[in-house]
């Protein structure tokens, strides 16, 4: 257990030294700040709090950025160490392979969570500072859900990135895969679904199938979780018009995210255990 902590601390220090911590915080903060300024402008005096507006815009953009940052943080974590020769050395130490892989995952998750927390925190404070409501009057529940689900979304793609890194043999290949995975999950999946729905084939597809196929993608589960599970965000994002049978409960979407975290973590523990050095 002490070894796991040592490995986690090393991972965090590495990311800090490689300026990954700074970069991630900078991107998240810049993104959040821009959105909170732009987002709060046109609302005027509606009944919806400006923080909720910011949450809606943040979650729409985070769905692109968090997987990207997570994949960039993790794609090289095992292949890269192997290429430098430090992996082989580490494996001769009295440390189990599972600890090594988990140490990377936990360390990177800590870095990413910090970036999310600081970035969104700054955004929220800006909104509060610029608005004229009392601190307690904002809908902090919605904001908390955004942070929680963003960290989970990050964990999903960190897990996928480390799994990839534990299977592949060269870091250049791993980089290509990282971009590919990002495109598939975040862009192409939705495009494909959209294409399918606007084609004649859509007539043969029951609504249920479409709904579950969509929820199966962690990025969409994240988006739905933030947009459709509270009244205000649903109203803002056009999700309010869904029929009862078209929605999915928050618990289900959280479970989808949990499953998407557990699966890659188990997968990389398994594949790293079997990796040849």
């Amino acid at each position, binding site marked *: 257990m002490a070894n796991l902590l*040592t490995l986690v601390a*090393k991972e965090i220090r*590495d990311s800090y030294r490689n300026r990954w911590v700074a970069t991630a915080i900078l991107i998240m903060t810049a993104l959040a700040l821009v959105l909170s300024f732009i987002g709060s402008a046109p609302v005027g005096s509606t009944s919806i709090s400006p923080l909720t507006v910011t949450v809606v815009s943040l979650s729409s953009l985070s769905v692109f950025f968090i997987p990207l940052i997570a994949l960039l943080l993790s794609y090289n974590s095992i292949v890269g160490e192997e290429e430098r*020769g430090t992996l*082989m*050395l580490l494996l001769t130490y*009295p440390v189990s392979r599972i600890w090594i892989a988990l140490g990377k995952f936990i360390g990177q998750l800590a870095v990413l969570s910090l970036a999310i927390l600081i970035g969104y925190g700054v955004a929220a404070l800006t909104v509060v500072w610029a608005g004229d409501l009392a601190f307690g009057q904002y809908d902090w529940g919605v904001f908390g859900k955004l942070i929680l689900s963003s960290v989970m979304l990050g964990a999903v793609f960190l897990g996928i990135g480390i799994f990839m890194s534990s299977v592949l043999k060269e870091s250049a290949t791993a980089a290509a895969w990282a971009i590919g995975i990002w495109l598939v999950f975040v862009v192409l999946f939705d495009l494909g679904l959209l294409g399918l729905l606007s084609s004649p084939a859509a007539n043969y597809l029951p609504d249920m199938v479409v709904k579950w196929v969509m929820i199966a993608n962690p990025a969409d589960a994240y988006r739905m979780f933030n947009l459709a599970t509270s009244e205000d965000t649903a109203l803002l994002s056009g999700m309010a018009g869904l029929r009862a049978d078209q929605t999915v409960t928050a618990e289900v979407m959280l479970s989808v995210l949990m499953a998407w975290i557990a699966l890659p973590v188990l997968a990389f523990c398994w594949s790293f255990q079997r990796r040849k050095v």
Partner: protein
Amino acid sequence: MKMSIKPVVSALGVSKNFGQVKALQDVSLTLGKGECLALVGHNGAGKSTLIKILLGLIPPTRGMVHVMGADVQKRGFKKCRQHIGFLPEQILFQKNMTGRELLLFYAKLKGAPGSQVNDLFRKFELEAAADYRISTYSKGMRQKLGLAQALLGEPEFLILDEPTSGLDPMARQKIYHILGEEKQKGTSILISSHVLTEIDDRVDRAVILNSGRVVGDGTLTGLTQQLAIQSRIVIEATPAACERIKTVFAHELDIQQTTQRHVVIHCEQARKVPILNSIYALGIQFSDIRIIDPTLEEIFGAYMHMDRGGANG
């Protein structure tokens, strides 16, 4: 104190295939306590594969390997790892860390006290650089840092894969000096190298690998005698004296006159002393005399030129 007679390393009939490629074929090897063994062979001879097997990183296709009494393929071997120091052939430590941070990290993983880190920096004369980032280190400093890493936790068994390749003679001497100290403490050392001249006088024994087979195993003298590689006696004297020596020894020894003032006598190592005695007995004047024993490089070359089938057994 009772000395353990069990060898630190015992590998029996180890073979390793990578698909069709036979990286190791029926390799057997033992390393006693406090012994320093050189594993010698060209690139691709199977040294690194053998080292990986000894470290339990990859399983052998056939054969048994015990290190410090434990089967390297069994779970129980994990405990032994604490007592093994390893320096990989090529390693690039995280450049953004300082030397001290790096050693502290490895010390923690090995359960070694942090105070050892300071001692090692002193030992390797890296104190001044300890708090600089590794990106500012020279190659020699990085190699010293790597070796310091291997010495963390006072290992009983050291495996060094090409520890001195690419280093200048000063740095190399320093590293061997420290290894000498380790050996005196009773540490067993396995060094791999393709550069034989670098390890001449520190090894007790050499195992020569060629294309995955052991083609020679023994002390330096033993290996030399097996192949009957001859020593050379170089004598510098007046032309007349050279002539005299030639006529005396020509019928029984291989003797060459390289210049007017130089003769070279080739002889088996065991005959050096009698021959020198008879030269002195001639009572001639000579200005210089040198005895050149075969270097490991020459022995190695001879073993490499042997037919592959020439491996004894």
